[in-house]
């Protein structure tokens, strides 16, 4: 196998590889700004300079020439090379800043150049704390400044588009944002304007940067030049807590990170998954963070005299049991949801089979033309395929409204059927509707009883995306009944770890009074005299699913974590016993 020597260590490699990427893949580091693994490599920041040489081969024998000590004779490139666009070749010898003083000096020099016109405003810059320039300056940069003349001034606080704000003075001209719109989103909305040290990225005059993926430029900006209009000034990154999750605004299953502080979700950023979304996500998915904070159903709500009032949990469970026991089993309709997880839908279906109701039905939530062939899909729900693989009857809207009209009791799992005009209020007039909801909506308002359940940001659960890949979430924010310090799946940020209830940044307000659907089901089961819902968490439910349902065979949280999701065999079907 071909070999490469980096800082005296031998590595084997295969295929075409960029030196910088290879070094990173080995867990080593060379500082850089403009390089991004999913974009072209213009080698313009000149930060990743390393010393590169090739062994000299005897022309006739093809053997490596050796010096008097028996070491290979190395012919060094006369200049330092940018490792981002250097392709590894057999026998290549590389010295990074770890072993070569000239490389170290060159990297320091480049940082000095980058910093001369960069504002010293880290204390008020959103990027601080997750800023490659800041981090690499600490590690590799010069101390102090020799720049005693005037900095270049450029436009600041430019609203590039509805979601992105530019501070041109902070820009270091890496061109990642421009390359993103040219190579990934392909809207070509950005360019570099002007020349030399007056350069900065901008849209065409009077045009908005309204690219459906515009916020990715904020993520990849290696400085604070591009910031999110929404997230700006809301939090310092080190105060937040980062939890892996899945985008629920469509069926792509884009991998995301949920950022919380004091149990409020403050932003969503994409999480790398080569097989799903690479490094990117649509702007729409980021807006969804509000769903996790705002308008949440907290405590059960019951309709009394046409008005929903808060009720106790005990009363809620008793009411459901009373309603179910008062009607014929065939008059109970269970509606599953493509907006709920595999685990929640499974629980609904288990409830129906144990109690002898009809199998749950569901209707998909699609909007033609929403999909773009990239990360947006026509399907606006994260788990339609999960419902299908669970063997749910997929019905169209008219069929569903017919069923609902006929039913005496409807158990509706988190799906805003009234809001999206599948059902009308009138159709539900003579039906007792129990809605298990995360958020208040027209649908929940219509319901006779609303039981608050946890949302994706509060539980670990799985979703099957449009390509049949099952992926899962982690709990990111606490509810009234969970505790970060006791739940090993939950992360702790600095504030979580060091804050106490006596600190003014810690409140109880942001904890929603809701329960995971399987606990709700378990309480209902108690009331109705069945059991089999003794789950501690989603993981246990998935263990049961994978051991009983063919499509989910072999699926576990551990594997999903290890393999960044598992593609399910969609040919397999759930056979109902």
């Amino acid at each position, binding site marked *: 196998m071909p070999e490469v020597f980096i800082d005296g260590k031998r590595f084997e490699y295969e295929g075409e590889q960029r030196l910088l990427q290879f070094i990173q893949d080995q867990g080593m580091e060379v500082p850089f700004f403009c390089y991004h693994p999913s974009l072209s*490599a*213009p*080698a*313009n*920041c*000149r*930060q990743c*300079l390393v010393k590169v040489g090739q062994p000299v081969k005897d022309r006739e024998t093809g053997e490596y020439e050796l010096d008097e000590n028996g070491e290979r004779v190395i012919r060094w490139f*006369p*200049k*330092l090379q*940018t490792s981002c*666009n250097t392709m590894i070749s057999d026998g290549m010898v590389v010295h990074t800043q770890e072993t070569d003083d000239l490389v170290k000096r*060159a990297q320091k*020099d*480049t940082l*000095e*150049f*980058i910093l*001369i*016109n960069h504002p010293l405003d880290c204390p008020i810059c959103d990027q601080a704390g997750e800023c490659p320039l800041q981090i690499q300056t600490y590690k590799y940069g010069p101390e102090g400044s*020799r*720049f005693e*003349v*005037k900095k*270049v001034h450029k436009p600041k606080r430019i609203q590039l588009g509805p979601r992105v704000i530019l501070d041109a003075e902070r820009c*270091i*001209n890496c061109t990642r944002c421009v390359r993103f719109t040219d190579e990934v989103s392909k809207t070509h909305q950005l*360019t*570099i304007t*002007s*020349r*030399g*040290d*007056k*350069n900065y990225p901008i849209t065409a005059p009077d045009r908005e940067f309204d690219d459906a993926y515009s916020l990715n430029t904020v993520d990849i900006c290696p400085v604070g030049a591009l910031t999110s209009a929404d997230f700006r000034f809301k939090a310092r990154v080190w105060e937040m807590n980062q939890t892996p999750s899945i985008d629920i605004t469509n069926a792509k299953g884009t991998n995301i990170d949920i950022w919380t502080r004091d149990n409020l979700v403050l932003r969503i950023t994409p999480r790398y998954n080569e097989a799903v979304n690479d490094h990117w996500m649509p702007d729409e998915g980021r807006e969804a963070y509000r769903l996790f904070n705002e308008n949440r159903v907290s405590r059960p709500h019951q309709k009394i005299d046409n008005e929903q009032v808060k009720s106790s949990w005990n009363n809620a469970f008793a009411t459901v049991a009373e309603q179910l026991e008062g009607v014929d089993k065939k008059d109970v309709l269970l509606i599953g949801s493509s907006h709920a997880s595999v685990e929640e839908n499974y629980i609904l279906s288990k409830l129906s089979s144990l109690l002898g109701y009809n199998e749950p039905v569901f209707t998909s939530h699609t909007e033609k033309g929403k999909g773009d062939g990239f990360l947006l899909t026509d399907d606006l729900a994260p788990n339609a395929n999960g419902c299908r693989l669970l063997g749910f009857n997929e019905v169209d809207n008219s069929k569903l409204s017919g069923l609902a009209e006929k039913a005496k009791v409807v158990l509706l799992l988190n799906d805003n059927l009234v809001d999206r005009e599948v059902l009308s209020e009138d159709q539900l007039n003579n039906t007792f509707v129990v809605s298990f909801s995360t958020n208040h909506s027209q649908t929940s308002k219509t319901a006779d009883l609303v039981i608050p359940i946890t949302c994706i940001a509060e539980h670990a659960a799985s979703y099957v995306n449009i390509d049949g890949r099952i992926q899962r979430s982690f709990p990111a924010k606490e509810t009234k009944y969970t505790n970060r310090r006791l739940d090993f799946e939950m992360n702790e940020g600095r504030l979580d770890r060091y804050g106490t209830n006596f600190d003014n940044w810690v409140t109880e307000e942001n904890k929603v009074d809701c329960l995971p659907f399987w606990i709700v089901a378990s309480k209902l089961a108690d009331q109705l005299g069945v059991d089999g819902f003794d789950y501690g968490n989603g993981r246990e439910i998935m263990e049961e699913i994978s051991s009983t349902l063919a499509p989910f065979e072999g699926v576990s949280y551990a594997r999903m974590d290890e393999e960044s999701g598992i593609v399910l065999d969609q040919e397999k079907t759930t056979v109902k016993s």
Partner: protein
Amino acid sequence: MSTVDWKNYEPVLIPNIKDIHKIDVYRKNGGYEALKSVLTDKKKWADQKSVIEEVKSANIRGRGGAGFNAGLKWSFMPPADGGPRYLACNGDESEPGTFKDRKIFEYNPHVFIEGALIAAYAMEITSIYVYIRGEYKAYIQMMEKAIQDAYDAGMIGKNIFGSDFSVDFYVHSGAGAYICGEETSMLESLEGKRGYPRVKPPFPAQKGLWGRPTTINNIETLSHVTSVINRGADWFKSIGAENHPGPILYGISGHVNRPGVYELPSGVPVFDLINDVAQGMRNGKKLKAVIPGGSSTPVVRADQLDGVTMDSDSLREVGTMLGTAGMVVMDEDTDMVDMLWRITHFYHHESCGQCTPCREGTGWLEKVMLKIKNGEGEIKDLDLLLDITTQMEGRTICALADAAAWPVRHTITRFRDEFEARCKKSVHAVA
């Protein structure tokens, strides 16, 4: 070192013939015979390779400043695969002190067109673009006319001279950017983009214009090809300096009595160029310094110039380069601080802004130079300037950073006393 006999040199690039810019006059004087010969005389020119070999052996060193053997460059082109291949002729001519190619456009455009066509034939090129800086509006028009005349005369187009060689020839106008004289930046500009130099590899011979094999040559370089084919490589090599042979268009400017462009052999003594060719210093002043080949080539003090000739070897001995042979002559009254500040201003203005060391370094150099020029500088600023040049050199995609750094380094080193005299006296804290 044998002295070059420049006084008896008969110009060939731009000969002493009236109206040679007109195609009929050019043809009457043997024009397009070289092209005809390579296309039709199979005894003399068996194939394309024989042409490349002849040009390679003539050792025409690129006249755009880099001085690379043109024939050798041609030989880097991969074998033809039936797809398009390009020749890009570099007429961007923007390095301060350089104003020679415009003479070819004006006085003998066909010698260039013919040379480019021969190059195109030799490398199996399908289209030729000549990139001319946008400020040369007059010369762009002249070239457009000359190319049209050559098309009309059947020198360009389909099956030239009845051979199976066909090629197109287009003029592309720049729009004000020195960097587009850098060959890969020129390709970007030709493709309609911002003139950002490309990362190499891939080299233009592999992936040039529109991802296809491309060779880039300077206008004067290609014009010499015509003479080499007409008169042979040996003739070319017999002219001027051994390691940098052939005629050169010298552009002389600055404080001389008769500035202008002169076609003379390479290797003319610098003093001959100043004193005889350019008829001496203006107003009887004394010579102070010379920039031999465009603003990026290091300035040389008058006392270093004894016996120095205009060829790469001799100039290297005094720590400078031939560059574009655009020589800038400075008299004893020249303020080296002002002069250097203006050069740093130029490179600051022209840096494309792609690479960090150049984008930031050129601006820093100019700002510190301005400070010194205004009498605000300190001695430590001179050392800072030298440091900045070290940090810029060899660290960027193209050579503009080096071109900006060299004059600073060498002007300060060679005229340090003048710079120190302009600086504020250092104030030392007294303990």
